[in-house]
């Protein structure tokens, strides 16, 4: 392995002072970064270990829940407040990776994890995300796992996270620290579409640090479901996943939240379907109609064309579970 420097600042300022230098990378749980280093996808000169920053807390605030960027995926999934008030998030986290990985993986790292596209991981293959300008291997290649929404001719990779799908559905907000202080970004605006610059996964600047996320209070706890369709029952990335949350009163849907994973370069919110569901009675028909609405603009690239059918089926299925009809 290439030799690199490893530093371990104990203050946020200490981290911010060093991270904007080229070749510098933050390391949290290391479950993604170390793999990428082993495969030669990234080769930092300096690793900044942020595990000594006090960013592990999970606390209730008047407006909702605050989760520090270093809170472990397992700690969040098992936290009593999360289980009670934000079960969607707990379900999504538990659908991801393995217990061992969740015990190391952090919230910030999960958001920043990179695509699992096979062409991205193999340095001998073309990949615009890894090596801009080299082409997209997946576009006409092995793309069974790839995007059906928001892709570009440059890249059809998907963001692989489960947690992020739930956070997008729950209207979470990302809290980011930079040289000039803190800024807040809606979760749905954090990740980006590939466009002409697939090398950029999100809108975090090189000199910024994720410090936490906030989830606003909601009325979805009773009717939430995360459904992940995958090639094996555990420890596999989503073919399609759906985070569904309903606020139901007397059999009528007051508000709905829907987001999909495994279908785009970012967690994919289904705003049109959400709107269509508002005011509708809880019924399989409403769910199916919403699911169809969600598919506008979807596009298959060959091997992944099955997702055009699987995605609406999964949306309807997730809604059924959320509503208690399944």
């Amino acid at each position, binding site marked *: 392995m290439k030799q690199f420097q490893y530093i371990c600042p104990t203050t946020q300022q200490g981290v911010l002072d060093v991270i904007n230098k080229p070749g510098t990378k933050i390391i949290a749980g290391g479950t993604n970064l170390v793999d990428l280093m082993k495969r030669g996808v990234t080769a930092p000169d300096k690793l900044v270990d942020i595990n000594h920053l006090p960013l592990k807390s999970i606390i209730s605030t008047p407006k909702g829940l605050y989760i520090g960027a270093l809170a472990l995926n397992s700690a969040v999934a098992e936290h009593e407040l999360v289980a009670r008030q934000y079960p969607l998030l707990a379900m999504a986290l538990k659908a991801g990776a393995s217990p061992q990985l969740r015990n190391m993986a952090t919230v910030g790292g999960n958001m920043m994890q990179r695509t699992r596209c096979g062409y991205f991981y*193999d340095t001998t293959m073309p990949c615009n995300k890894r090596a801009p300008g080299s082409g997209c291997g997946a576009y006409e290649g092995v793309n069974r796992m790839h995007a059906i929404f928001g892709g570009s001719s440059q890249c059809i990779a998907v963001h692989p996270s489960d947690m992020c799908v739930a956070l997008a559905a729950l209207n979470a907000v990302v809290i980011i620290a930079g040289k000039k202080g803190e800024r807040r970004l809606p979760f749905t605006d954090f990740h980006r579409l590939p466009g002409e610059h697939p090398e950029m996964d999100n809108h975090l600047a090189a000199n910024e640090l994720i410090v936490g996320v906030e989830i606003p209070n909601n009325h979805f706890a009773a009717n939430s479901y995360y*459904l992940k*369709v995958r*090639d*094996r029952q555990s420890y596999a*990335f989503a073919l399609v996943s759906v985070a569904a949350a309903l606020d139901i009163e007397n059999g009528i849907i007051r508000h709905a939240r829907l987001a999909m994973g495994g279908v785009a370069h970012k967690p994919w919110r289904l705003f049109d379907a959400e709107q269509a569901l508002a005011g509708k009675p809880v019924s399989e028909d409403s769910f199916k109609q919403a699911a169809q609405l969600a598919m506008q603009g979807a596009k298959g690239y060959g091997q992944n064309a099955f997702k055009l059918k*699987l995605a609406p*089926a999964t949306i309807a299925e997730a809604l059924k579970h959320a509503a208690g009809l399944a």
Partner: protein
Amino acid sequence: MKKEINLNMPSSSEGMSRIDGRLKVTGAAKYSAEYTVEGLTYGVLVGSTITKGTITAIDTKAAERAPGVIAVITHVNAIKVPGFQSEAGKPSAVRAQLKVFDDNKIVYNGQPVAVVIANTYERALYGASLVKTQYSKEQHETSLNASIGKGFPPHGDGLYKRGIQDAWKSAPYKVEQEYIVPTDTHNPMELHAIIAKWEADDKVTVWDKTQGVKATQHDIAQLFNIPVDNVQVNSKFVGGAFGSALRTWPHEVVALIAAKMVKRPVKLVLSRADMFTSVGHRPYTWQKIGIGATADGKLTGITHEAYGQTSTFENFTEGPVGVSQGLYACPNVNTKYNLVALNIGTPTWMRGPGEATGAFALESALDELSYLLKIDPIELRLRNYAETDPESGKPFSSKFLNEAYQMGADHIGWAERKPEPGTLKKDGLLVGYGIGCGMFGAYRSGATIKAKMTADGILLLQTAVSDIGPGTGTAMVLIAAEQMGIPAGNIRFENGASDLPQAPTQGGSATTASVGSAVHYACIELKEKFQKLTGNDSPKAIDYAQVLKQHNLPLLEVTTKSTAGDDRDKYAMNSWSVHFVKVLVNAATGVVKIDKVASVADSGHIISPKTARSQVVGGAIGGIGMALMEEAVMDHRYGRYINNNFADYHVAVNADIPQIDAQFVNKPDPYINPMGAKGMAEIALIGMAAAVANAVYNATGKRVRELPITPDKVMA
């Protein structure tokens, strides 16, 4: 000669745990890569990034200058391996294998083009990243489907026929379908690894992951043109292999070349990605079956064609069409087996080898026929039950497959099955039941055991055989305990080294039958020696320690060789299995959940119930993986595997595996060997994939003929 075997003979120490279990779970078991050898250096391979062509330049300077790097070896500077030079008189294993580092030709992607040797693994790894290779590319062929027109028979005309050619075509009820088994990889948990240490110019010791220390010993002797006795091969523990360590691979030769060149021992451990290209795989196989029957379900003809992958430099063959020749009493059978030579590493036997591939096709086709005939799949099998071997006409040495059907049907709850697909539901999911059978030759070959009783009352059994995980040592100890009438705890088993007495390679489900027979006879001989001493042939338990003390002897020992008798000429010998599977399917998403498995093995007398059960459970899990998720996916434009890691190449995990009900007919085969025990490792997997596919059909009405059965192929 028929042996009287007491049917009620209790398996000695019913349910004894593995003798090496504690060593394994505590980490004390030492695998090949874990030996400390003085002056050890570390090798990391550099693999070709093209699929076919030649190396035009290879720049090793940066790597050579990197810290800790001792040598960079390529075809340019590698010593010549004598076995690669002259073809005459060399066994084909040596003749045909990849002549690693011998020239600049590239014949598959991932082929080793260099090895970097350094004083630490990390430094070798970094060094390897600095080797820059330039190639001249040629058009490669990696897709079997695209090259199927270039199929050729591996031996003779590749054809088999009994009765009328293509008789199925004139049957009133018939099915003709194509089936695909993709490339699956063995990928045992333990990576392939070797430590090579030259003791002298013509003398070498290796610690190597191998299923056959003797075979490896001979290969190395041939390759380096040195006396067999000058090669010591140790393989004390093997962390799974499933067939991948049945032969000598390029990385082993590389380690031997490198150790010779740097004049220090070299350790070479493959990466997980190398495990996909360099140590074989289950070959992608395209099959077509035509099968016909009368209205009352009597098979009138089977035609079975199979085209399997091989490499461009070696013909790898297995037996996918054999099941169609022997599983059912059908008068007219013709089969065809062809290979397609592609730019890939050579495939190799993977658990249940060709039979598992063939059984997926045959047992699926038979299931399709059962729906056409509206005859219960078990009943259809019974109507075509082979009482004698359909191929040779010989009687079977033993066969209780019909009893196995009944046991399995009871355990899975077959009575709940609905003949009409898609009609049984539970909690919003579709429920389906499927059956699939397996058969595999019951082999036995020569083996030698040295048995030594010392004055402390401890019996030591020694033989070269590898134990790749089935619990060979445990079974051998149980056989000896039974014969000697002493507790298993007083018996030691030493194996996995080439200087121990001859034993076959562990493969083909033949170890217990072969080595176990040698243990059996060695114990009888040893007991006789004691009886001679005491002049007493009473069957009462002998106090061996006491006898040795009385005669002032430190020990008594025998070396006993056992070989298969001529019963093999008179009887057809097979092991059989039947797998029953119950699945739950979400019709909307296509997700298949295995709800229950009942697997029944008809493999003679069960010697070690616990490890036998593990074999069945492991085989069923391997079969579930094969059925639902395993597939090494290649991008044929590049000839590279896309999912060459354990996150993306899916093997079954705990959540995929339900309760597996492992049952045994447990009736001894009176002819195969003195214990009446037949092999069971292969049959535990053969037929399982079809059982799953058939259950999915019963649940959904969707017939998946191309494995694996992923949600996209099942969803409504």
